């Protein structure tokens, strides 16, 4: 059975949990990282020398980097559905998955960590506000894309929606100012209607 290592309140672990449940695959998960520790100890570092989560073990493959995990699971178990079979359609999905890593996450991290994982006395409100503005600029790009596409990868739900979903949940749940992104909201409502997203991502902010 596929093994997944990582605490379930990590947005990167959520991506893996969500795609596994969308497909209906069996897996065993072990809490690693954050309050559970172990990510900086030898047994885990042997699997993932970065000491970050998640890591999966599937047969002979030990794989880390959450978007690579989403891509691997989708292409192995859902080719033609979550993972488009045509190279151009797949490339457009992967482009937005990369965009989550290169652009979208950078705005989120200072806001989320500042408001949720820091004590009020340690917060830097100016830095949080600046990062929020950067983050909003990224959502504006996606909002425009979603004005022409029902989902991130095109006209149906694909693996491209998965890395961005947990980041969107944080955007809509954090106590911050939010612009009126009509198309983003429409897409987010579609995502929130998916049981696997509700189960693994809509679990509160921690």
């Amino acid at each position, binding site marked *: 059975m596929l093994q997944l290592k990582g605490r379930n309140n990590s947005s990167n672990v959520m991506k893996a949990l969500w795609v596994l449940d969308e497909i209906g695959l069996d897996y065993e998960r072990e809490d690693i990282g954050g309050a559970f520790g172990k990510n900086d100890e030898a047994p885990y570092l042997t699997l993932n*020398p*970065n000491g970050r989560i998640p890591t999966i073990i*599937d*047969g*002979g*493959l030990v*794989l*880390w*980097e*959450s*978007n*690579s995990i989403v*891509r*691997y699971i989708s*292409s*192995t178990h859902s080719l033609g559905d979550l993972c488009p079979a045509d*190279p*151009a359609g797949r*490339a*457009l999905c*992967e*482009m937005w*998955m*990369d*965009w989550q*890593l*290169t*652009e979208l996450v950078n705005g989120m991290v200072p806001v989320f960590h500042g408001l949720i994982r820091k004590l009020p006395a340690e917060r830097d409100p100016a830095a949080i506000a600046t990062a929020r503005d950067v983050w909003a600029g990224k959502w504006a*790009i996606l909002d*425009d*894309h979603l004005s022409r596409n029902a989902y991130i990868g095109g006209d149906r739900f694909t693996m491209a929606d998965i890395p961005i979903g947990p980041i969107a949940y944080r955007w809509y749940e954090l106590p911050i100012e939010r612009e009126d992104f009509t198309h983003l909201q429409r897409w987010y409502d579609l995502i929130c209607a998916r049981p696997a997203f509700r189960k693994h991502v809509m679990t509160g902010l921690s």
Partner: protein
Amino acid sequence: MLKILGRATSSNVQKVVWLCDELSVPFERTDIGGPFGGNDQPEYLSLNPNGVVPTIDDDGFVLWESNSIVRYLAEKHGAGTPFWPEDIQARASAGRWMDWALSVLAGRHVPVFQGLIRTPEAERDMAKIGAARDLWAKANLVLEAWLADHEYLSGDAFGFGDIPASPFTYRWFNLAIEREDFPNLKRWHDAICARPAFRKHVIDIGLQ
């Protein structure tokens, strides 16, 4: 013909032109970004709303994000060769190094490269550059450990997974910084430097 938009000095553009030459894919490149500008103009933003380089136009198919471009072109022109393995697990293993280059390596290298190459000497914050260098070295330790057990990042043979980390490693070995002794990283980097297409698109451009 494949069109590549982006200046030759961008490490993200270098990934794409290097790959094209490895696979003998003809292309036309246009200078965009940096001193050439154009990346903040409506014409370019209509192709790539992020205003960063590169973007490709492959007979009307527009794609951005350099790693996605590398994967797309590698599959289109390299399928059936060791460069794009048939085996899905081998492909996933190679591909992780592309995501890792984005999620870890790129961010670790930026303050050092920008600080030493794109910042005037009088404005450099050497303490900050030194601290960033230490974090970059830690990331290179991850490469060193992998390369102790594997010939390439992609596995036994050179492949698409080796592309994104390489321009950063070139910078590591050529910037005026302290360097730990990473023998396996050095062996891999020497193998990459021996490739004519890498020489042409990365080494001959140098650090700018």
